[in-house]
């Protein structure tokens, strides 16, 4: 096609774009994906029966605070990497804040507990399944983000894939908190983080293939 014709054809469809369009697009993808993950938790895994009680205690909020703040930090990175001129990432250091805070809590927890119980506390009841469940719950959210990216313009595909995977994993872990009854900080720090990192690695692996445009 002639370039002039192409331009006149493209210029026939120029809807206004709001300033927050990139953020909205990502939020919708994540929201739809998280809805599917949430349904999976409710239908397949079951909400923990003592959720109402747990929400009155501090450990639930410790877990939720950890996963939710990582999710937000990852979203900030994803939003930047969704634009083509993303040479320099801002604010990526805030990812370290929840990790360091939870590490502090974990150390305090270990100091309070006799060493003989450390292993049981670290492994909890579900260390074998926790990372895999987080990874599985991350899939619908990752797919939602792939949909979001179809209209976005990442140029560093591996980094964008990793950030999207990280966000999907962290949001999935946030949803998974509704099911998981574990209470220890070092459990969360290890096995939740492992699940989230698995999702991020998968994102980094698939990014260059799936995010091309």
């Amino acid at each position, binding site marked *: *096609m002639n*370039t*002039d014709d*192409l*331009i*006149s054809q*493209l*210029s*026939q469809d*120029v*809807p*206004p*774009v709001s*300033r927050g*369009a*990139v953020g909205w*697009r990502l939020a919708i993808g994540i929201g739809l994906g998280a809805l599917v993950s949430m349904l999976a938790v409710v239908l397949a895994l079951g909400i923990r029966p003592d959720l109402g009680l747990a929400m009155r205690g501090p450990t639930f909020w410790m877990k939720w605070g950890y996963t939710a703040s990582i999710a937000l930090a990852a979203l900030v990175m994803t939003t930047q990497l*969704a*634009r*083509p*001129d*993303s*040479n*320099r*990432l801002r604010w990526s250091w805030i990812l370290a804040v929840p990790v360091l805070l939870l590490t502090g809590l974990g150390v305090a927890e270990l100091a309070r507990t006799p060493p003989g119980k450390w292993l049981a506390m670290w492994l909890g009841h579900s260390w074998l399944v926790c990372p895999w469940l987080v990874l599985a719950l991350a899939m619908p959210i990752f797919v939602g983000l792939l949909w979001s990216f179809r*209209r*976005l*313009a990442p*140029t*560093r595909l591996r980094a964008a894939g990793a950030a999207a995977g990280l966000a999907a994993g962290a949001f999935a872990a946030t949803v998974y908190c509704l099911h998981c009854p574990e209470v220890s900080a070092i459990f969360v720090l290890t096995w939740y983080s492992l699940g989230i990192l698995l999702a991020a690695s998968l994102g980094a692996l698939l990014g260059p293939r799936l995010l*091309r*445009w």
Partner: protein
Amino acid sequence: MRADEDALRGLMIGGLDGDAAAHAALLRLLVPLLRGFYRRRASGSDDDIEDLVQETLIAVHTRRATYDRERAFTAWLFAIARYKMVDHFRRVRRLHPIDGLEELLVADDFEPAASARLDVEDLLAALPSKQARMIRATRLHGLSIAEAAEADGIGESDVKVSVHRGLKALVARIQGGVR
């Protein structure tokens, strides 16, 4: 109308606000810019170059929501143009990069690390705006002197002098900071 940063940015924002005429004018102004950009970097037939230009125009159109109004339009545009070029080299083997493709890909990863360390933008902010703009165009966005002159509507010698003076001032500043 001259295709300088401010004019292009104004048209882009007009398009984002729903002004179809501004959007059409923008795309038309981008055609010569992109042709120059690709001809300088890829050897291939005119048809191949034109394919690349059209692909980039379509990307600029369909991905326009990713432009951040607070940031430089040309940086956004050439980031897309560069991406489309690398993607094109990978997909269609008819076009060949003039510089090694490897180099191009390595530079992509190297660039963020280097620029994060140096904090170029902060340094440039201390320069007079024309010098900063010209350094940005020729040294960061990879435009040639001629392209930068064209984009800003000034003479080529003016571009060279601005870049030269700006870089000299930056060197003085960095060395002053070390001492």
